[in-house]
């Protein structure tokens, strides 16, 4: 049954991708990309990667699509006829694809438990991590502890993204008068979003602190919390959102999250361990791991929340500016 679902989803993905190649209406292209993202999230669930599916759904289908739509609002939705020749790209793609297919012929068969991937390195995570790290969710253990340095890098990547977006677009405070949000008259939206936003934030907190036991963690939580504020900004307009959390404050928050993460590493160095060695954080190694993971997940959550919201602010204030002009 799982194979059947897999096949159907893969077929839908292939159709979506083909449609995107030939469509000229960029609005449809972006919506199809959102669908593509959701479909791949479903595949991830089907392949047991629940954490990844969660992230893909909130980031690929959520944040990325929203950002693309805002961009389209400023750049126009029609793709013009290309004058490029399609032969060279087609040739490059065919060669690359042929190389990959050639590479698959020697691959370990799909889903077989004897594959090298399941025999080396990973068994330790599966067998030992509940004892060594003390968390039932192995993905969180590996993410935050065994490969915590990667996750620090990931947080810094997000931080670099906001540096890039801010230097390119900047966030302008628009005066209230300038702005006539199209949604000002939407009474229904106002009421409903006021009910939903607190719930979404509550859910974000649940995802943040429940990530040790189930799917979720700082990253997903940050994105969900940012989504709540994005909804607020969309419905009530950017100036009101700025009054709740200003862009300058978000910059500090983004930096603070990275610093919080790194300071756990520095503290463990101070305690005599290596960088990010949580065992040294408390007398009992398991308790130390627990503290370490909670704090760094919080750091990730804070940075991701601040960065995603600030990026949206930057795009949103650009869009408003081009509307006014």
């Amino acid at each position, binding site marked *: 049954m799982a194979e059947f679902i897999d096949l159907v989803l893969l077929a839908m993905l292939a159709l979506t991708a083909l449609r995107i190649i030939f469509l000229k209406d960029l609005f449809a292209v972006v919506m199809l990309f959102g669908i593509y993202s959701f479909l791949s999230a479903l595949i991830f669930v089907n392949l047991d990667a629940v954490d990844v599916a969660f992230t893909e759904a909130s980031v690929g289908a959520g944040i990325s699509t929203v950002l693309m739509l805002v961009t389209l609002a400023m750049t126009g939705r029609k793709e013009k006829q290309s004058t490029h020749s399609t032969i060279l790209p087609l040739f490059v793609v065919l060669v690359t694809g042929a*190389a*990959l297919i*050639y*590479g*698959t*012929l*020697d*691959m*370990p068969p799909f889903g077989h438990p004897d*594959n*090298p*991937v*399941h*025999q*080396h*390195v*990973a068994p*330790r*995570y599966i067998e030992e991590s509940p004892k060594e790290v003390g968390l039932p969710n192995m993905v969180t253990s590996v993410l935050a*502890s*065994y*490969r*915590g*340095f*990667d996750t*620090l*890098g*990931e947080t*810094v*990547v997000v*931080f*670099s*993204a906001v*540096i*890039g977006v*801010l*230097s*390119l677009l*900047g966030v302008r405070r628009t005066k209230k008068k300038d702005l006539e949000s199209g949604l000002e008259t939407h009474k229904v939206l106002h009421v409903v979003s006021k009910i939903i936003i607190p719930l979404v934030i509550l859910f974000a907190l649940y995802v943040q602190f429940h990530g040790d036991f189930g799917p979720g963690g700082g990253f997903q939580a940050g994105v969900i919390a940012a989504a709540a504020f994005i909804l607020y900004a969309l419905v009530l307009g950017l100036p009101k959102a700025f009054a709740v959390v200003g862009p300058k404050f978000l*910059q*500090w928050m*983004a*930096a*603070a999250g*990275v*610093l919080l993460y*790194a300071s756990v*590493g*520095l503290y463990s*160095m*101070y305690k005599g*361990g*290596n*960088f*990010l*060695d*949580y*065992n*040294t954080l408390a007398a009992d190694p398991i308790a130390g791991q627990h503290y370490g993971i909670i704090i760094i997940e919080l750091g990730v959550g804070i940075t991701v929340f601040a960065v995603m919201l600030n990026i949206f602010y930057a795009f949103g204030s650009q869009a408003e500016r081009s509307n006014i002009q």
Partner: protein
Amino acid sequence: MLEQHLTALPIILPLIAAPIALILGRSVLSWGFATLASGLAFLFSWQLLSAALSEGVISYAVGGWAPPWGIELRVDAANAFVLLAVTAISTLVLVYSKDSIEKEVKAANHSLFYTAHLLCLAGLSGILITGDAFNLFVFLEISSLATYTLVSLASDRRCLTAAFRYLVMGTIGATFILIGVGLLYMKTGTLNMMDLAVRIDAYDSSRTINTGLAFIMVGVSIKLALFPLHMWLPPAYTHAPSAVTAFLASTATKVAVYVMIRFIFTVFGIDHVFVDMGMGLILMALAVVAIFKCSYMATVQSNVKTVLAYSSVAQIGYMILGLSLVSVTGLMASMIHIFNHALMKGALFMAVGAVFYRVGSVDIKAFAGLGRKMPLTMAAFTIAGLSIIGVPLTAGFVSKWYLVTAALEQGNWTVAALVLIGSLFAIVYIGRILEAAYFQKLPESRSSENIKEISWLMLVPMWVLVIANIYFGVDTSLTTEAANSASEWLFQTNNILENNMVEGNSQEVSS
């Protein structure tokens, strides 16, 4: 305590300094702070190099998890040597950038510039030091994102399209590396480079691993701007702010070259790459074409930054040529050239940036008559230019010397001759600029403008590099010693790996 963590510090320090530089906010404060952090990173990498030269490999398990379960940082003579060049250039460029950036970047973006610079430095150090294939991808992306930001900070609108093209090409390259690492992981079950090396050797020829190798090579080639994949480099270097060009031209591509060396020599093994896959010939052919095509392109450009950008692609050709010779001397030539080229291009781009600062243009016509007006800047340009050509008593001569020696060792007269002919092109493109600067008169229209020498804050770092160019051209003991032990080490690991392979095989059998 610092001794113990020396390996991790050159990454952690700029990584932590970056958000602090953003919080400081004020231009001068974040400049001072960034320079300080980068200077400290330079001191640490200096110590790291001497430690690596005396002790050999230093391994550091992040999080206290032993490799291959945790992420390993691994320093040896080779990467410590490149790291030294990167942190040194970064510090000098930061000193230089204060005035230069004030002119070329909007005031609101100054602290963002320093933050991005530190992030880029952290990413590059991470790429060099990490011993984990996926961790390398993460740091690659940190440095790339910071680089796109840095390039797009210039005031000319063409920097935007250049940055976008760079972003698309760079992301394709990174994704190719991701695919390659995935294929290797699929076949071996590990991401740690040393562990990968041992386990790859257990497979004599596997299609999956060969495909993985090909994808990693293409991905890294995009990042290091190897000949047919170099299209992103000239526009990006031309339109980026001068300080950024000086930093990127002397570090980013070099780090990518090192990544290629590392994958070839310590992960896949020479036999696999050069004997079984026949990559040596491909790399050599591409390197030779790069040297000639791009040196020629450099002679016909009118924008001096573009001239130097094409020259960079040609010089990368020399580095790849060195490693494609597959000998200790050849690899040594590559390593020395990585270091020396960083010194030359840093100085050259700083001088060009100084001209832009005063004249407001980097067209070759704008250089007319500057020899009198800005004597120190143009003297620096001249010496660094001679170094690019490979005139004796400059650093450039040393790298060319070892490259030619390596070629002659193998009796490869054609390559040796090609290297020398390539230098003739350098005489042409550097000569054109010098001719304009010294033998042409300042145009009438400009004689009324007050063009004078730039401030010492820009001159000092430029001259430090120029003096380094001469110093390493005369006293070659440091560079050759480091490069020699680096390349011997790289060949040695390869041999160790082959021995391990036998052990690995026997283990496989026994288990």
